[in-house]
């Protein structure tokens, strides 16, 4: 139960002996939680005249907002793009397993698929709050099929599509409806894409540019039409060229709508992108970096830590590879920035007062020791904790 009338009577829990990520810095403060939300203890003291009902010692650990993964295709043997009868349990399995990696919310991602798959799978992945059962589902990320042939990467060529004359209807027909959809990745150089972008944005869906050969001008136009994200920067797009930076140039473009900046996903495992390239992007536009896993079904098998072990590696990798990138920046890239991308920054990705109490307890090497959703412990590391 979050908020509401009963919240005032819910027990107040005070997490002590910790450093919390707040305002971009790690502060030596206690974290107060009540009714599934982060509580303002000063207000509690002066207005309600109450103290904590329970104190929990965090052993000097870091408390960061729960990680949000906006691009994950499956894991642990589950493939979200498979049209099975029971997609729900596959999603639930992944949702539960990623808790141990500190992910508290995610967007199940579907790669380019035939129509039947979309029609069958999409209705089975509703938006869902997280809890002891698993991380919360924020909505589906549809990566394709409206993408470039040349830059399709691992996507099946047979199912690629371009927009027909009545582009938006084409989109609806392809996906069978946009009810549970949160992000759509498309290539803006396709004909009629601008009107699609506008229509999707008007519905509150986040449009991302990726798997594309667009030049910078086309990309800027797409952003002006409402696109806000770049899917795995550098991968599946034209390389940066000094006379036409392509999509990569959006990071420093001066032709974006006022007050807005672009977010860009990065798979910072040191493999998809050379760490030096990662650093260039980060230094050019630190506030837009969003860490994603782009995990595939095979991952997580055998080596249980790999899936978001990637994220851990990323986070570690980010701090190890990107000189001048602090722990705080890395943590924000995994939590705050994806929340901002999806317009959820008041509730998710932050430890500000009133936000949902989704957070992770990390040691100094940024290994996850415990995961909390709505203030409830949903996972903790095996060795006994008091």
């Amino acid at each position: 139960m979050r908020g509401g009338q009963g919240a005032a009577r819910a027990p107040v829990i005070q997490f002590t002996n910790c450093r919390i990520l707040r305002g971009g810095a790690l502060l030596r403060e206690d974290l107060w939680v009540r009714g599934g939300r982060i509580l303002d203890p000063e207000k509690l003291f002066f207005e309600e005249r109450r103290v904590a009902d329970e104190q929990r010692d965090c052993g000097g650990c870091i408390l960061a907002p729960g990680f949000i993964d906006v691009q994950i295709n499956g894991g642990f043997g589950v493939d979200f793009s498979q049209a099975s009868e029971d997609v729900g349990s596959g999603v639930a399995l992944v949702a539960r397993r990623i808790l141990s990696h500190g992910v508290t919310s995610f967007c199940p991602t579907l790669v380019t698929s035939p129509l039947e798959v979309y029609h069958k799978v999409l209705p089975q992945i509703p938006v869902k709050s997280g809890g002891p059962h698993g991380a919360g589902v924020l909505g589906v990320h549809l990566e394709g099929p409206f993408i470039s042939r040349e830059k399709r990467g691992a996507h099946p060529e047979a199912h690629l599509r371009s927009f027909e004359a009545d582009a938006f209807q084409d989109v609806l027909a392809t996906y069978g409806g946009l009810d549970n959809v949160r992000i759509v990745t498309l290539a803006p150089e396709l004909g009629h894409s601008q009107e699609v972008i506008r229509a999707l944005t008007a519905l509150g869906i986040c449009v991302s540019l990726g798997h594309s050969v667009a030049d910078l001008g086309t990309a800027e136009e797409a952003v002006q039409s409402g696109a806000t994200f770049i899917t795995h920067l550098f991968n599946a797009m034209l390389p940066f060229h000094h006379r036409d930076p392509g999509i990569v140039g959006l990071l420093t473009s001066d032709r974006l709508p006022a007050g807005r900046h672009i977010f860009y996903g990065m798979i910072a495992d040191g493999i998809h992108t050379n760490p030096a390239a990662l650093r260039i992007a980060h230094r050019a536009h630190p506030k837009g970096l969003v860490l994603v896993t782009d995990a595939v079904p095979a991952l997580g098998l055998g080596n249980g830590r790999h899936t978001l072990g990637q994220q851990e590696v990323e986070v570690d990798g980010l701090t190890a590879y990107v000189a001048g990138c602090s722990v705080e920046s890395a943590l924000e890239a995994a939590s705050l920035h994806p929340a901002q991308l999806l317009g959820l920054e008041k509730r998710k990705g932050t430890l500000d007062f009133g936000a949902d109490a989704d957070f992770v307890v990390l040691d100094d090497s940024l290994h996850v020791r415990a995961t909390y959703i709505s203030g409830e412990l949903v996972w903790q590391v095996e060795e006994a904790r008091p």
Partner: protein
Amino acid sequence: MRRIRWTRRGLLCAGVYIRVLRLRATRAGWGRSGLLGVGCFSCSSVGRASGSTGLNLSWKLCVTIMRLVILDNYDLASEWAAKYICNRIIQFRPGQDRYFTLGLPTGSTPLGCYKKLIEYHKNGDLSFKYVKTFNMDEYVGLPRNHPESYHSYMWNNFFKHIDIDPNNAHILDGNATDLQAECDAFEKKIKEAGGIDLFVGGIGPDGHIAFNEPGSSLVSRTRLKTLAMDTILANAKYFDGDLSKVPTMALTVGVGTVMDAREVMILITGAHKAFALYKAIEEGVNHMWTVSAFQQHPRTIFVCDEDATLELRVKTVKYFKGLMHVHNKLVDPLYSMKEGN
């Protein structure tokens, strides 16, 4: 036990002059009965006329003691003050029906003292479970959760680190609909708590106590005050140096309110306070330097660092420095609640 004898200037005990004032039965002296004590500096004990000090006195006295405690630097001064408060609370033996009431200041001067008190609490030596606090003042019109409000100051620098009951932490509400009623209610709360055992305060560069600006009545009570320009200038540093952002009015305890406390401790550190200290203790009682009113309080301690004494006479400073061995008996031994005292 040293003997008390009369001299031309009053009682002399161990070389310390003790002035005798007419008893004011309704004023708080020592002890809640408000009378009957001889306080000896060197004995640092409060005795009753019945002779628990071993003295045979048959008259009732209300004796004033003014202590000027001079430490080398800010940190030592903060520590001395914190130790004194700690000892006072513990020796009082607070409990379920017996709360120790503390008046508290804000500003940069007491920060070191608060830090030490928090340290004693975290070590398990001091609990604030049976302590009631009354803050001196609060800005008018500043939202309670504004980072510069005194509520925020007290929460961040003190309350959130200790075990005080929120119902016992009293701060004036600068956003009350009826400000005077709020002030009257505050006075009433102090009274209901049995008066203040120890009021800790600071001094402004213009010699004010709390927000009792120059010209305030020396018998004033808790009320609304407009801030003097000196105060606004001094506070501007907390508002990004922008004078227009500094509140111009505040609710404050009166000079009379603080004078009612059984004991007063004023913390004064830094060269910029030196002139105010000089005016407060080497010149006469004057409503333009409201801290000077405490010359007439039965039990006042001024705790300072070297820099704050820069405007005093060498003779004064030497005299009180020479008494440090006596002063230090008040803080050494430092008591602890651990042994179950």
